[in-house]
Structure formats: structure tokens, C-alpha cells
């Protein structure tokens, strides 16, 4: 009940600041950015490990959101709308990156690191890095689906909303991406029982 009240207050504050932003009130938009940047920073960190790039991506999300603000419909929470923009900004960044260079570390090196100790005792930051390293090897579409699935625990409907894809397409891509990942791990001779030893 309390959570609902807090949510409603936030939603009211958002609507007030959105109206202000649309009238050109910079302070109102700065308030919106400050309210949601922690969540967006956390999300965009799944798209890069470079702090400078992370800053640029988060900025890009809020600039794009500002330009799209007249199209925002208040039926959905603002954060959902921002997350959708963020997912697409991140995906676009990967597509450009992919064309520029492929920086994945050798899979064998990754395998050695994961075999050193089971994920449960791994530092969360290390686990995040290992997962990032693994997903980095996939094409951007596969990586986008699995990033939303693994890092953000999105279900099919949420991924479809975020990426603007149909649910069927998400299911097919997720299946193929997981299959690709499975093959990759099998090729380096991974056996999950080894990870528990």
C-alpha cells in the first residue's frame, strides 16, 4: 500500500516535470534526469565497460528521451519508457562497435577464469564481467536478447516491448542465442560438473 502511494507520488512528480520540460523549463528536465539516472546508469553498464562510453550512452538516452517527450504517454511509468529508449541506444551502440572492431578475449582464457571458482563465490562485479565477456562474443541481436534476459531478468513480453520486436521473434532469437552459447561452451569442453568440483 505504501509502495503504491510512493509510486503515485513519483508519477505525479514526473508528470509535473514533464509538463515543465515541454514548456522549456530546463530545471524540470534536470530533475527528471537526476531522478532516473541511477537506474539508467545501471542498465547501460550492461552495454559497455568503458566509463567514458557509459557516460556518453546515458547522456544519449536522456537526450533522445527529451526529443521524444511529446510522444510519451503517461499510462506507463516513465522509467519503463526510459528503459526502452536505453535498450535501443545500447543495441545501436553494439551494432556500430561490431563493425569497428571485435575485442573479445580468447574463449579459452574465459574458460580458465570461470573454472577457477564457481559463480556462487565470485564477487558480483567479477561475475558481471565474466557474463559480459561471454555475451560479447555473440552477434548484437543475440546479445541484446540475452543481456535483457540474464542481466535484467526480462521475460519475453518485456524484451519484445523494449526492443520493438514481436514476442515470436524474441522467442526465436532467444532460442538461437542460447543454442549458440551452448555450442560455444561445449566447444571449449565445458562440463557443468567440472564447475562444481
Amino acid at each position, binding site marked *: 500500500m505504501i509502495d503504491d502511494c510512493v509510486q503515485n507520488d513519483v508519477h505525479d512528480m514526473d508528470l509535473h516535470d514533464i509538463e515543465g520540460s515541454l514548456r522549456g523549463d530546463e530545471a524540470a528536465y534536470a530533475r527528471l534526469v537526476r531522478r532516473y539516472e541511477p537506474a539508467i546508469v545501471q542498465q547501460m553498464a550492461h552495454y559497455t565497460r568503458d566509463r567514458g562510453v557509459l557516460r556518453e550512452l546515458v547522456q544519449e538516452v536522456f537526450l533522445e528521451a527529451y526529443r521524444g517527450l511529446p510522444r510519451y504517454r503517461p499510462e506507463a511509468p516513465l522509467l519503463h519508457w526510459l528503459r526502452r529508449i536505453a535498450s535501443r541506444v545500447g543495441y545501436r551502440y553494439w551494432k556500430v562497435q561490431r563493425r569497428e572492431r571485435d575485442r573479445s578475449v580468447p574463449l579459452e582464457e574465459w574458460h580458465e577464469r570461470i573454472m577457477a571458482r564457481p559463480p556462487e563465490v565470485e564477487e558480483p562485479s567479477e561475475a558481471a564481467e565474466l557474463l*559480459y565477456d561471454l555475451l560479447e562474443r555473440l552477434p548484437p541481436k543475440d546479445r541484446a536478447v540475452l543481456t535483457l534476459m540474464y542481466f535484467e531478468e526480462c521475460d519475453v513480453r518485456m524484451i519484445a516491448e523494449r526492443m520493438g520486436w514481436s514476442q515470436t521473434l524474441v522467442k526465436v532469437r532467444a532460442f538461437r542465442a542460447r543454442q549458440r552459447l551452448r555450442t560455444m561452451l561445449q566447444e571449449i569442453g*565445458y*562440463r557443468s560438473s567440472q564447475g562444481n568440483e
Partner: protein
Amino acid sequence: MNDPLDLVDRLAARARRHSVEPLSVADDVIRQLRKPARSPLVWVTACAVAATLLVFALVGVPRTEADPLDALFQTADFIRTEGGF
């Protein structure tokens, strides 16, 4: 043999606990919003100006020392002026 993706699921569960160091972009965003947007028209105009300058640089600026009226009177010798100044 177990599914190797179990490892990825376990890794993901752990990775989700990671929280990123905070970062503030609000001031930068507002600064960017103050910059005037570059429309395609600006680029087209800039290209046209650059092309004109290039043509002038290659061909040279036409000399316009002579008054066009002087040239007209030079060739139109049928026009007679009476008296001096």
C-alpha cells in the same frame, strides 16, 4: 552431462547483484540541450559555401575594375557627346 547453460544462469544470478558506481549526467544533458540543433539545411548551406570558395580558389575571382558603363560607352562610338566637361 548437464546443460552448460546452467553455468550461465548461475553466473547471471550473481552478476545481477553488482551495482555500478554512480554517475551524474544531468548538467551535461542540459548543456547539450542548449546547443542549437544542426539541421540538414545547415549542412547543405555549409557545403554550398565551401564549394563556391573552392571554385573561386581554383578559377580566381573575376576582375571587376572596369565600370560596366565605361565598357558600354567604349564600344558605342555612335554616341556623340557635345562639348567638353
